[in-house]
């Protein structure tokens, strides 16, 4: 995006820095390279065949969804503590990315589960807790669009954001704490060396993608907030 499209900075809000066009380029190239590496270097799994490739999206998406939830948690706590709306906007940006990555994790897990387990879905503790995670974060985004008053919106969504993020350790540990159909966490240490680097590289690529998306959405949220404030002023008839 170029600087000409931006609204001029007002007295109260600082200018929003333009975003480097490098981020999307790096993120998408890293993702394409990591996926290509995974597809070209790994042999088909002994039991699953080429279904194993789903791991290169499902697992990195899940890890980075968890990280995005950590940002939601941090932003929410810091907002309640400092009452600085930038933390609220950061939490909201991370929540959008967390919602997308959680949905992606569930969708690909389901596609993998049908041929492997024999079912698209089952209510085991891992799947159920992940579904709850998705519902909470979608609820968070819905809540934001329903509440108009910015301060109240920030406070309420911070509470929901914290609640959602507290579910993350439960989701992660569910496969150890309870009996599940889902296998324990797949880590580079539990997979054949032939798959470990594909997993690591895709995790890094998804991390870059996640950071880019959070930054871009944070920037958009800041611009939206500025406009919201300008509209407010106009409605009140102030200059």
């Amino acid at each position, binding site marked *: 995006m170029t600087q000409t499209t931006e609204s001029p900075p007002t007295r109260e809000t600082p200018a929003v820095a333009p975003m480097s066009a490098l981020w999307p380029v790096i993120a998408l190239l890293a993702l394409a390279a990591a996926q290509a590496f995974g597809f070209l270097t790994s042999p088909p*799994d*002994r*039991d*699953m065949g080429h279904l194993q490739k789903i791991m290169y999206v499902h697992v990195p998406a899940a890890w980075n969804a968890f990280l995005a939830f950590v940002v939601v948690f941090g932003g929410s706590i810091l907002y309640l503590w400092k009452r600085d709306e930038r933390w609220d906007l950061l939490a909201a940006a991370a929540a959008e990315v967390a919602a997308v990555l959680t949905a992606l994790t569930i969708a690909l897990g389901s596609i993998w589960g049908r041929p492997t387990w024999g079912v698209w879905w*089952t209510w085991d503790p891992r799947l159920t807790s992940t579904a709850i995670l998705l519902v909470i974060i979608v609820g968070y985004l819905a809540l934001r669009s329903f509440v108009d008053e910015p301060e109240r919106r920030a406070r309420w969504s911070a509470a929901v954001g914290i*609640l959602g993020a507290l579910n993350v350790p439960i989701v992660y540990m569910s496969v150890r704490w309870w009996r599940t159909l889902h296998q324990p966490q797949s880590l580079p240490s539990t997979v*054949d060396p032939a*798959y470990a680097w594909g997993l690591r590289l895709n995790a890094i690529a998804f991390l870059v993608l996640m950071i880019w998306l959070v930054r871009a959405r944070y920037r958009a949220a800041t611009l939206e907030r500025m406009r919201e404030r300008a509209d407010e002023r106009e409605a009140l008839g102030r200059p």
Partner: protein
Amino acid sequence: MSTRGRRAGIAVAAAVILGTFAYLVYGGIGENLVYFLTPQELAARGDRAYDVPLRLGGQVEPGSVVWNAQAVDLKFRITDGAHSVAVHSSGAPPQMFRDGIGVVVEGRYHRPGVFESTSVMVKHSNEYRAPKEGEKPAEMYRSLQTDAGT
């Protein structure tokens, strides 16, 4: 609300959330969240085991699988080492179903002792292994059409 009141409110909310979390982790809920029973637990249930919807999980007892492709009829036993339960299913098993693999079945346990299954699910481990020298990777799409099951 005063700042003080709001702080107190947040503190109470935080305490409730953390309390719930701690209860989930260390409390009794973990024991009630049982996704499936093992054959041993099914046996320990006595009369309460029969004719109620259940999930049963364990290993497919090696050598116990009887698969009739014409009648689409599957019989096998699920074992946990200590006990084993006969399972009957009238549906094709998932492609990865085989001797010795972990499974979870849904259905009801009937007298005198057959688990009538409506759904057979294969539990995959978190170990991903490349085929060893000479082994062929599973071509699941093809094997489904040629010989479902064993």
